[in-house]
């Protein structure tokens, strides 16, 4: 069948089940149900601290076929997922589904577990590195299910994704299971992505290298959700926890794109008192923040909030009074961690509060401007951030689709050409975010506005910005690169891309 993003998808996918096709970005936001949670209650003489991962797995009743969840605040420095899965494998357990909010190169040991059948399913919002390669090459038994950050929270809260045991990597944890992310050698700041897991999993295990006396202060995830605590030597490598991407680009092309994007924001009329804003942590999107900051200072504009994964750069904008507060689901660098710990206007948010379409209102709905990246964009404004042009999985939505749907103005910033590949093409390899939620594409050679945004096009009449149609932008790219050869991929389905409402927006096929 053909879904609303004009992608051909099967009605039934082996290992996934019956497909609910994507019907449009705002078609399924109406009523929702939340799942019941079954739990084992504790009395005053129960001890929660357990001596080893093996013992805690046994206490949680580990068995074949279970779904184990992990969160990704320790990023590419995370030891917890590997340490737990190694023990699961050692116990001879098979057919495990790993629900990790993101998977990084450090999780390479999963590849062997996939090949040996210990792991047969993956739910994630983003994956890069050897695991993504192995999935692309068809090693995983069932198709990997790719969520958005908000969509994962929705799936957990609705019961679509039932978690048997959640493992919370805990930079600080007390002996009764109160957790925060701001203290200890592996301090990572906000634990926003782990909150739905803690609230809805059958069993919740805190893994910590910083076991402290009761009670911990401050508390991000509280004792009422935590079954057991295991103290280990190290939960992660601080060097891998802090992202290396949080520097403003020095590349002149990136700076030109950022400058154009900031001018577009200024001319959109949204940049006034009360302005709210989000960028990713990439060098170009951070440069947009730098230019927006200049404009805000020049015009004496006081914004309301910035959100998302928070970088030191956004913290500086808070400290300079350009925003009243921050909403933080994940800290990208140490400066963000410190600010999150010390500044009461730097607030945490859960993945659900951030982007879940099926709650009573997510933060993304309050965003004025969102700056996004892209691997490919098509002439319907659909964006791919999931696969490379070679078909290999190299990312995923993360918050891309959630913020694009929520923000008043969602701007994709990208080079028009990367390594000879035209980024604006007739057809993207994979649709991650539907074009109806993308308002503008900004490249170094021109800006395309989604024709659906008649109001914005009207507003920009007479603008000196290099505005053109998306077809013109595509032709500009192809004139330089030549027309790429098309190749059809009819390989088996190795990934299912779920939109934030749980419908299927696209599938990923095995790389031939």
């Amino acid at each position, binding site marked *: 069948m053909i879904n609303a993003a004009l992608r051909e998808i099967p009605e039934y996918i082996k290992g996934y089940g019956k497909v609910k096709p994507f019907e449009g970005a705002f078609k399924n936001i109406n009523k929702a149900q939340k799942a019941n949670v079954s739990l084992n209650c504790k009395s005053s003489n129960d001890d929660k601290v357990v001596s080893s991962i093996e013992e805690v797995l046994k206490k949680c009743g580990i068995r074949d076929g279970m779904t184990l969840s992990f969160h990704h605040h320790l990023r590419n420095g995370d030891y917890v997922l590997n340490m737990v899965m190694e023990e699961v494998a050692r116990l001879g357990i098979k057919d495990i589904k790993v629900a990790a909010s993101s998977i990084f190169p450090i999780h390479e040991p999963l590849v062997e577990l996939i090949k040996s059948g210990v792991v047969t399913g993956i739910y994630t919002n983003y994956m890069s590195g050897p695991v993504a390669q192995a999935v692309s090459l068809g090693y995983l038994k069932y198709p990997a299910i790719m969520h958005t950050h908000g969509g994962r929270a929705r799936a957990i809260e609705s019961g679509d994704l039932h978690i048997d045991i959640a493992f919370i990597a805990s930079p600080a944890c007390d002996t009764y299971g109160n957790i925060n992310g701001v203290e200890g050698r592996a301090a990572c700041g906000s634990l926003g992505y782990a909150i739905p897991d803690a609230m809805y999993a059958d069993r919740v295990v805190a893994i910590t290298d910083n076991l402290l006396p009761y009670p911990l202060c401050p508390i991000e995830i509280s004792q009422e959700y935590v079954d057991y605590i295991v103290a280990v030597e190290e939960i992660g490598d601080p060097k891998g926890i802090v992202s290396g991407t949080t520097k403003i680009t020095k590349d002149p092309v990136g700076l030109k794109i950022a400058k154009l994007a900031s001018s577009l924001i200024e001319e959109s009329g949204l940049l006034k008192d009360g302005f709210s804003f989000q960028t990713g942590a990439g060098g170009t999107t951070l440069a947009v923040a730098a230019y927006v900051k200049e404009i805000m200072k020049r015009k004496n504009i006081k914004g309301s909030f910035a959100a998302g994964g928070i970088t030191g750069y956004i913290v500086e904008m808070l400290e300079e009074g350009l925003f009243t507060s921050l909403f933080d689901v994940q800290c990208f660098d140490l400066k963000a961690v410190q600010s999150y710990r010390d500044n009461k206007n730097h607030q945490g948010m859960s993945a659900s509060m951030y982007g879940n379409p099926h709650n009573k209102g997510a933060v993304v709905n309050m965003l004025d401007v969102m700056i996004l990246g892209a691997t490919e964009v098509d002439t319907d404004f659909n964006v791919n951030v999931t696969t490379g*042009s*070679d078909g290999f999985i190299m990312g995923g939505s993360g918050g891309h689709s959630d913020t694009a749907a929520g923000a008043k103005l969602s701007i994709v910033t990208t080079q028009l050409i*990367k*390594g*000879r*590949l035209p980024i604006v093409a007739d057809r993207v390899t994979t649709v991650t975010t539907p074009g109806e939620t993308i308002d503008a594409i900004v490249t170094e050679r021109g800006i395309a506005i989604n024709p659906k945004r008649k109001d914005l096009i009207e507003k920009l009449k007479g603008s000196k910005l290099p505005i053109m149609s998306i077809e013109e932008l595509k032709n500009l790219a192809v004139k*330089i*690169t*030549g027309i*790429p*050869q098309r*190749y059809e991929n009819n390989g088996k389905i190795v990934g299912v891309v779920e939109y934030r409402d749980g419908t299927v927006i696209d599938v990923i096929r095995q790389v031939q």
Partner: protein
Amino acid sequence: MEIKRIAKCGTFESNDIYVIVEPNSDGGVEINLESIVMKQFGEQIKKTIDETVKSFGIKSIKITAKDRGALDYTIKSRVETAIKRAL
């Protein structure tokens, strides 16, 4: 014209192509290409290399090219320089 020795041109930088040319003892034009955009532009790159070789009237050559997303004019100039260094 005849390829007399091994010569190279280019870098492994993004958007460049690294070209090695050498005499081909088997005769004929032999092109070994690796490219990060093989699926999309492999044929086009080989065609550009082949045309550049032919423009010199060279009948026997072995070319090894490692492409990092070079555009046609870059490919042409890297191949041309490598050939001139090998004559």
